[in-house]
């Protein structure tokens, strides 16, 4: 777990590849034993930015929207229509603010990995997606249990009617495991590992290109270094697409789980 900077200063001793240690940054300031790290600062910044952006678009709303209001409404409408209405239907409209919050929070914190001064995807630390996945889990368990009662929810999930009874021996544990354990775990891990692995590869491209270009020397170093650095730019754009896609998939799956808990299993 080497600090990324050491790889650059290592110079002629060879190239030390960046490891997971690039996510462990020293705290900005400490209060007792609690260190305020860069990822916490990015999370707070994301909250402020999203609030200010949506407040600015919704203030003084008019019937015929101006450009700012239109942009805000399109962004919110994307989550409301594309994710909320498509997957849950009209009964899902109360959940649209929750889904919109998830979508914009996750995409801003993902994109912080390529924004120049921030350059750390805060969702790469497992704590934040873990809390988001737990939130979604509690919401869909609550929705399912409110509709059918605690035991009714589990009975419907594990023993759906209209199936010959020997199949239940196989079906019930799989359904239970899938709904209660696998869904939130994969929701969390998919997001955090996408950001972790993507950031790691991006840092590898850039540091490796820099090492090849400056420290390796010779025509081989210069050529391969410049190709690697150009590749890092292309990879940055690919990362931007993946970051938005992962936010969209997280929100879509949250909507699917909530919608699945709201209808009767038939």
């Amino acid at each position, binding site marked *: 777990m080497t600090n990324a900077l050491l790889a650059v200063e290592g110079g002629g001793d060879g190239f030390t590849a960046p*490891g*997971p240690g690039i996510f462990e940054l020293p705290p900005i300031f400490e209060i007792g034993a609690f260190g305020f790290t860069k990822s916490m600062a990015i999370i707070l910044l994301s909250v402020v930015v999203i609030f200010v952006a949506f407040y600015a678009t919704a203030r003084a709303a008019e019937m015929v929207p101006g450009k700012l209001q239109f942009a805000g409404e399109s962004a919110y409408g994307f989550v409301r229509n*594309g994710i909320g209405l*498509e997957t849950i239907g009209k009964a899902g409209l109360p959940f649209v603010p929750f889904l919109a919050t998830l979508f914009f929070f996750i995409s801003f914190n993902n994109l912080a990995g390529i924004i120049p001064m921030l350059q750390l995807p805060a969702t790469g630390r497992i704590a934040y997606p873990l809390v988001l996945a737990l939130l979604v889990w509690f919401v869909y368990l609550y929705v399912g249990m409110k509709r059918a009662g605690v035991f009714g929810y589990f009975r419907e999930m594990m023993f759906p009617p209209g199936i010959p009874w020997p199949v239940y021996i196989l079906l019930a544990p799989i359904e239970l495991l899938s709904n209660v354990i696998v869904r939130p775990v*994969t929701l969390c*891990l*998919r997001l*955090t*590992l*996408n950001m*972790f*692995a993507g950031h*790691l590869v991006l840092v590898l491209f850039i540091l490796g290109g820099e090492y090849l270009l400056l420290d390796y020397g010779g025509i081989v170093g210069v050529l391969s270094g410049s190709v690697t650095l150009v590749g890092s730019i292309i990879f940055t754009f690919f990362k931007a697409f993946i970051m938005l*896609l*992962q936010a*969209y*998939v997280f929100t*879509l*799956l949250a909507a699917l789980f909530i919608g699945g808990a709201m209808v009767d299993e038939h």
Partner: protein
Amino acid sequence: MEGNLNMVGYGLATLGPGLAIGLIFAAYINSVARQPEARNVLQSIAILGFALAEALAIIGIGLAFVL
């Protein structure tokens, strides 16, 4: 030759998701080729399937580094 068994494990783990993503997008391309109007409806399903299949590959590379 130095290395890490983690990375060998990850290399093996990319077989499944690679095949899965190829199949998903082959089905998507075939369907859009037969019926171009279905493109918008199928696009979100294709992207959802891609993300679900990619999840296993991503879990593989993540755990290869961490464990």
